[in-house]
């Protein structure tokens, strides 16, 4: 018999080019414009913060999995994605040790404790941020004016802060030096405002999001639902819908956090409800909550519902509705009469 060493396996014998690693790489690439802009706005401290969280994420995944004797998994690049995402949603002035602690918490507690990639019920980067926000509320709510360096003299409030404190949009426009409200929208869209490192430029975040949509890495349902309902409920609660979308981390969250595979529902209807729930919670937290911004908690709360929303499956091919037991019950009733 000639042929030796033939591979025997069950079909299929062909595979699509996409792999977990390539998908994660695409997400990293999609985040680069926003990352670059954040570093431009806040300089070296922002760069160091990004490097620190990424390194801490990768190292903690490596060490934790070695400690529990699990197969090494850093090759899938998901730890880099988590570290990068965490850095981008932190204020640029976050102390490095604090950011590293957040990254370790993200990877070890939020991800690996639950079984690693794909098994975590909550978005690890958001858990990291929520953990830091609760542990060090002052540090995680200290913001700096862009392009002025991380110095005490440059601390300021974010546009959302100002509105929470009762300022009108015209006041905010004046504060950021945008002239009128139209100028404010434009400035927020381009991203020259205080906030987390990666969230501010709606333009660059959207470019990254559209890149992922174009590659088919993410689907349109969740971002559209989040953005649409955030605008809708903000308007319904008496807030300016456009300002609601352009300020804070809504767009970043819609494209990069709410679309997280592990923690969002798989089915189309589930995705729509999940996205709409996030939008509603964002508007409610901003209007009624204690924080000026609510994207983190809105997404984390909806993460909890994902397993239930997965039950809203599409009808399978050739679905036949099961016969209702009522039909057999009816004659029995008549017989009883």
């Amino acid at each position: 018999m000639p042929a030796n060493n033939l591979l025997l396996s069950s079909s299929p014998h062909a595979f699509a080019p996409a792999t977990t690693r390539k998908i994660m790489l695409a997400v990293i690439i999609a985040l680069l414009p926003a990352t670059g802009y954040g570093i431009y706005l806040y300089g070296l401290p922002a760069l160091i913060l990004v490097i620190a969280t990424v390194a801490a994420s990768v190292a903690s995944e490596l060490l934790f999995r070695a400690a529990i004797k699990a197969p090494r998994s850093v090759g899938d690049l998901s730890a880099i994605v988590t570290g990068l995402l965490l850095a981008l949603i932190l204020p640029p002035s976050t102390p490095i040790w604090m950011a590293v602690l957040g990254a370790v918490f993200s990877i070890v507690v939020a991800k690996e404790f639950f079984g690693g990639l794909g098994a975590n019920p909550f978005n690890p980067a958001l858990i990291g941020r929520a953990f830091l926000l609760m542990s060090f509320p002052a540090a995680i709510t200290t913001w700096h004016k862009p392009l002025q360096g991380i110095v005490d003299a440059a601390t300021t409030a974010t546009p959302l802060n100002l509105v929470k404190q009762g300022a009108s949009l015209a006041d905010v426009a004046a504060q950021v030096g945008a002239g009128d409200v139209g100028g404010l929208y434009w400035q927020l869209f381009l991203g020259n405002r205080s906030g987390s490192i990666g969230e501010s430029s709606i333009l660059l975040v959207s470019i990254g999001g559209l890149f992922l949509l174009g590659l088919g890495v993410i689907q349109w349902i969740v971002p559209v639902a989040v953005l649409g309902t955030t605008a809708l409920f903000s308007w319904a609660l008496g807030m300016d819908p456009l300002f609601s979308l352009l300020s804070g981390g809504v767009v970043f969250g819609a494209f990069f956090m709410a679309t997280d595979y592990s923690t969002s529902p798989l089915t189309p209807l589930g995705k729509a409800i999940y996205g709409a729930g996030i939008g509603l919670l964002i508007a409610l937290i901003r209007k009624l909550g204690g924080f000026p911004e609510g994207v983190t908690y809105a997404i984390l709360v909806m993460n909890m519902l994902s397993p239930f929303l997965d039950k809203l499956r599409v009808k399978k091919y050739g679905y036949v509705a099961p016969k209702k037991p009522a039909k057999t019950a009816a004659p029995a009733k008549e017989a009883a009469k």
Partner: protein
Amino acid sequence: MAVKSFRGGAHPPERKDRTSGLPIEYLRGAKSVVIPVNQHFGAPLQPLVKVGDQVKRGQKIADADGRMTVPVHASVAGVVKKIEPRTQSNNVDGPCIVVEADGSDGVDFLAPLDGFACTKDEALARIREAGIVGMGGAGFPAHVKLAPSKPIALVIANGAECEPYLTIDERVMIERPGDLVEGVALTMKIVGAPKGVIAVEENKAHAVAGLEKAVAEKGRGFDIEVQLLKTKYPQGGEKMLISAVTGKEVPSGGLPMDVGCVVQNIGTLVAMVEAFREGKPLIERGLTISGAACASPKNVVVPIGTLVSDLVAEGKVEVTEAELGRVIFGGPMMGTAVPHYAIPVQKNTSGVLLVSKKEAEHYVEHSCIRCGRCMRACSCRLSPALLNQALVAGDWEDAEKIGLLDCVECGTCSYVCPARIQLVQRFRVGKQLLRAKKQKEAQNACK
């Protein structure tokens, strides 16, 4: 012409260009053949010959009583050398009749019969006697399929050929459109369908003109139409093809006849025509031999029972041994990988692929990242990721609810999975286990 299709699916690299332009080669000079006794879906057969018997080409050599049986015929004239278990293309050892050609040209065909003039029962009997089964893969007895218990409105000739590499149906559509059209007309006559459709994927659009011409010339006035479909896997699956052409869905657990359809493979249609016109049983078939480790890709017609290893030894198929990674009977999406190639071509072998080590790369299963690619690709809309979750957890109730038994095992989910999770593989095993479990429960309930 509006191009139609079904929901879901994927588009793997076609790799058909290696053979799509090559006319069919007729390699009938097999020195010996290994003919599996059981090549159909149904009850097993008994050999009608014994070792040492002289057999003619076309002589019936195995048969059995029962509706779900289809006889097997000698594909060369010669002497029965052995009757013994051999590895078949499904990787299982089964009884095979080894016939060594003796150079004689004894032929034992059936008498020609006009399928358009005879009764339906005569036609069905002829189809059974000629040993005709579905040649697309399942090997379902054709005489059973063509005697549905429900009225049939539409006969669909399955020219989708959606598996990568395979081009034999395409060549038949180009080289023998008249016989194909006659086969469609014959099927319509037998099942009493008022309409026929030859469904062709767009990557074979060049065959359409010839088919339409053949319909005009050889269609005997039957209402037959050629329909283009968007190239997509698994369009050649019966259920998907019916959805693509008619927009209807075969109900869960049902058959094509439940929506008034009969779907026939291209090769089967041509074999039927030969069974009537020449009285020739199904003793040879066309297939594509291809793959990156095959230096001489081609479309061939060979006697049933031809060993691939003989084709290689005789120099009719050249293999680059150093590169060979996998041998597949069928297409890369649904075919079976076999341990060697001393395996016979059967009635349902649509291709033999000699796949290179690079193409046959073996992957390790990673964890599900819940990307949802399988959910969108599943042509049955079964939520493979959730089904996998249920099976891993041993939750049979949930698995059945999600639709485990509706899985057509097309493998698109595994194909698109970036974590290389063995989805369809798990579903295949799961289906069998669930059926066995239900059977056991039913038995216990009877006790």
